[in-house]
Structure formats: C-alpha cells, structure tokens
C-alpha cells in the first residue's frame, strides 16, 4: 500500500519525535528504579541517571524488614481479594436485569436512573465520611470495599455488552426451563468472559491504586493499604512512629533510595501485569467510549 520509493524526511522526523515522547513517559520510572538500586552515597550525590551506581539491595532489604510494609501489603491484597469478586458479582447482577427491554422489566428506567444518578451527584467528602463512621466501618476492610461495591461505569459497559448477545440464546434457555439466575450463570457469564476479564482488571487496578480512602478511613496506620502507607512515607515523610533502632538503620540508607524503592514496589504489580492490562484496557476503552 505504501510505496517506499524515496527517503521520507517527514516520516523519519515523526518517528523520532514519537520515540522521544515515549522515552519521556518511561524514563522517569527507569530513573527511580535505578536510584532505588544504587548506593545511598551515589544517590545523594546525584550520580545516578538511568542505571544503578554501586548496585545494592539495601533499601529493599530495609523496606521489606518493616512489618508495616507487609501489613499494608496484606491489607491491599485482602482488599483486592474481597473487592474484585464483589464488584464483578454486583456488576453482573445489576447489568443483566438492566439489559432487558422496559416491557420485560417493570421500573427498568427508574432502576437505571437510580444507579446512574450516583455517578452524577454525591454528598461530598464530609457526609460520606460521617456516614461511614456512623455505620461503624472506620478501621475495617469493609470501609474500603463496600462504598464502591457497585461500579456503575462497569455496569454500563457490561449492560451494553449483554445487549449484543443474540436474544435466541436466552429464549432457548428459557424454553428449556432455565430461570433468569441460571441463564445468567450458564449463558451470559461464559459468553462475556472477555468483557468480565476487562472489568476485573479495571477493578483490581482501582483497588490497588486507591490510597485516599485508606488514609481517611483507617485511623490506625496498621490498617493502611499499601498505597496509603507509601503516601505517608514518601509524600508526607511521616517518620514519627518509627522506633529508635529503625531510625539508626535508616541513617545508613539514604532517604532518596528508600523512597525510590517504595515507589517501585508500589507500582510493581501494575508493571508486571502491564501487558495484560494494556491489551484488555484498549478493548475496554473501545467498548466504552467509541460505541454509538
């Protein structure tokens, strides 16, 4: 299709420019990784560019020797373990009825609006916090998973996906005597696996990356998920609840390498899962944004 008969200057310029911009997107991360594996002296003196200087695991050893790190990691994993299945279950349960025509489900539009309004309007920070406090959820893992249990955006995506499924399949199931619950479980869910995988990834990334609710709703730092823990250490520099021994250990590692290692650990699962993430999210975006 593209005859390459002569040197195309603009194309080369374009490719060069795009490659430079891509570097701009990944080099900061590579720099941080390099700093995290460098000796504290090299890092503080600013010798580190894109490759570790005096390679060492010291800052990682330090971070991993902290019980707080493992505690918060556990909270994050629990959060994903409870939150993602809950999100998926509720998304399916809400999307299936809403994918029906209005005559097949009474009050369909009332229901749909009830869910949709929650995307448009909220009470704001203080009422939200007060409500959760009155439910007695502060300092509990449920405060992190229940408020976002119904991801309305995912519901909209799945609902539209369900509508594409041929009606005949469902009718055949109904004739065979399957009820709605059975139809969802044995027909809609298996057919929607790609869509559900996308939504599962959305949900996992969301849960992993959330930090503010942990910071706000967990009074006791022992209940912080990993991102909230990193936020207090890296951004707020809150070292007040550190023992004297820990302080002495810390003196041997530079602040900079330590923070860098924590930043890297906080993004590691995302980076490892990135090939999958990218593939599915592109589908998800196309599914969600460009339809209609």
């Amino acid at each position, binding site marked *: 299709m593209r005859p*390459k008969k002569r040197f195309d200057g*603009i194309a080369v310029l374009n*490719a060069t420019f*795009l490659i430079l*911009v*891509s570097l701009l*997107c990944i080099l*900061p991360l590579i*720099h*941080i990784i390099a700093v995290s594996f460098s000796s504290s002296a090299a890092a503080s003196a600013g010798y580190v*560019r894109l490759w570790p200087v005096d390679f060492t695991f010291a800052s990682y050893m330090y971070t991993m020797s902290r019980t707080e790190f493992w505690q918060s990691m556990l909270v994050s994993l629990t959060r994903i373990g409870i939150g993602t299945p809950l999100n998926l279950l*509720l998304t399916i*349960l809400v999307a299936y009825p809403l994918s*029906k025509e209005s005559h*097949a*489900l009474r009050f369909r539009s009332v229901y749909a609006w*009830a*869910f*949709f309004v929650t995307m*448009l*309007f*909220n*009470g*704001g*920070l*203080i*009422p939200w916090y*007060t*409500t959760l*406090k*009155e439910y007695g959820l502060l300092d509990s893992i449920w405060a992190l998973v*229940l*408020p976002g*249990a*119904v991801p309305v955006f995912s519901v*909209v995506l799945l609902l539209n996906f369900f509508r594409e499924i041929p009606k005949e399949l469902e009718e055949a199931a109904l004739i065979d005597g399957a*009820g*709605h*619950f059975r139809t*969802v479980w044995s027909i809609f869910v298996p057919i929607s696996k790609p869509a559900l995988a996308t939504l599962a990834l959305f949900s996992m*990334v969301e849960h*992993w990356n959330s*930090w*503010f609710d942990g910071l706000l709703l967990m009074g006791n730092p022992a209940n912080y998920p990993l*991102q909230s823990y990193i936020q207090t250490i*890296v*951004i707020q520099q809150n070292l007040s609840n550190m023992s004297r021994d820990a302080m002495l250990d810390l003196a041997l590692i530079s602040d*900079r390498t330590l*923070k860098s290692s*924590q*930043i890297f650990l*906080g*993004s590691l699962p*995302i980076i490892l899962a990135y090939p999958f993430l*990218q593939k599915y*999210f*592109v589908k998800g*975006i*196309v599914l969600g*944004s460009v339809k209609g």
Partner: protein
Amino acid sequence: MRAKLRKELPLHLMLLPGLVMIILFSYVPMAGVMIAFQKFIPAKGLFGDQKWVGLDNFEYVMNLPSFTQVLWNTLFISSLKLILGLIIPLVFAILLNELASNVIKRSVQTAIYLPYFLSWVVLGGILIDILSPSGGIVNEFLGWFGVSKIFFLGDNDWFPFTLIASDVWKNFGYGTIVYLAAITGIDPGLYEAATIDGANRWHKTWHITIPGIRMVIVLLSVLSLGQLLNAGFDQVFNLYSPQVYESGDILDTFVYRIGLLDAQYGVATAVGFFKSIISLTLISSSYFLAYRFAKYRIF
C-alpha cells in the same frame, strides 16, 4: 399478569443487593448534605438533633478571601487540563497513525499508556524526586542548557503549570488510544481514493481523518465539560505544600483542609454541596449535548 410477575421477580431480586449498596453508600451520604445547613456536631450523629443555621455556612465561605482564589485556581487548572487533554491526544493519534512501522507504533503506544495506570501516589513520588531543585534530574538536565534551577513544586508561578503538564503526561496515552481506535474505524478506501486523486498527507489528515473522527472529538469534548470543577484532587493532594496553596489549592483540597483538618464540617459540606450542584448541572448538560450532537446514550 401474575405469571408475568413471577417471571420478572428474579430480575428484581437480582437488582436488590446493588440497590441496597447504593442506597447505603450513595443515597444516605447524599442526604448528609443537610450538614451544610447545620452547625454540625459529630457526636450527635448524622440524623441527630443538630442546630440549623440556614445559609450561614455558605455566607461564611463566600466571604473568605481565599475562596475566590480557590475557585479561580480550580477553573484555571481544570480548563487548561481539559483543553490540552483533548488536543494533545488528537495530535498524537494522528502522528501515530502516520507511522509506517507497526513495531514502533506498538512500542510508542505501550510507552505512552503506562503512566495512566500508576497511582498519583507513585507518580507524585516520582515527580517530587525528579523535579526537586536539589539533585532532581530535570533541573540537572536543564542545567546543561544553562537554565537556572526551577522549584517546580514550590513556586507559585510554576506550580499550576507543573500540575497541568504532569496531568497531560499521565493521561494523554489514554486519550490517544481512544482517538486511534476511532481512526482505525475509518474506511481505508477513502484514503486510497484520495491518494489516486493526488491528495498528500495533509490533505488526507484534514479532509478524511479529522472529519472521520469528528463524532468522537465532539463526544470527548462535551463529556469532559462536566469535569470542569474537578481539577484533580489526587494529583494536587500528593504534590502541593503550604507554600503553593495560593496557586494550587482547588475546591476539593480546600474542602479536605477546612473540613477534616480544621473540623469545620458544616462549612466544608457547604463548599462540597456548591461544587456538586454546579457539577451536576454541568454533567447533565454535557450528557444532553452529547446526546444531541453525537447521539451518545449511556444505556
């Protein structure tokens, strides 16, 4: 009639858990906006016997000198983010589409999309490190060109632009992929025909690519209007410090500080309520416009 109801009943049952959740965690907090009209004392509880003060909280806020500044910061930061966040991805999608090599194309896509997935805690940590005036790699790089040190995150002249630039940096990969997906949907026959007619790259971009994705451009622009009062809490919260409150404080961080740190619950809720009402109006109108001009429907 009864048979129909029995057939429908499972559907209503399926909706029940979801409904309970949004009532408990979305609608009850919405009812909580009444705090905005009270002198709220948390010990008495959300539905307790609070003292009603009418619009006092709103009046108090409007008279705060910092409020106008905060409102201005919010609008300034978010509108620049919106405009650049629409144009830059469009340009990149067109440039990417022009690439002949699929390997480079895919690698570029992979790279520019990565920051989108990282949390603002992680990116905030990275930015604080690389932008630091003492040993940050960006300042060092600028130093090679004889630029004197810039305190990106601590200088009121620089801070808003640092916010805008870093937001574009995080998110433009996402927008690019949306546009690119739309460009892929354009009929290749159009390009071939144009080539035969002697059209060059610019002609094709201007007369085929851009009109071909006009709907997506309209849609994204219209929908982003609804976000005008969201200047990015996560980002600002992780990057700001007292010395840049003047230029970087936005409505959401303002609510957080007066509400939770200063314990002025009524006042903070009033600001939040004000923001929600305007946002609701903006979002509803943007959905209306999206339906009108791009035939966009949510469900």
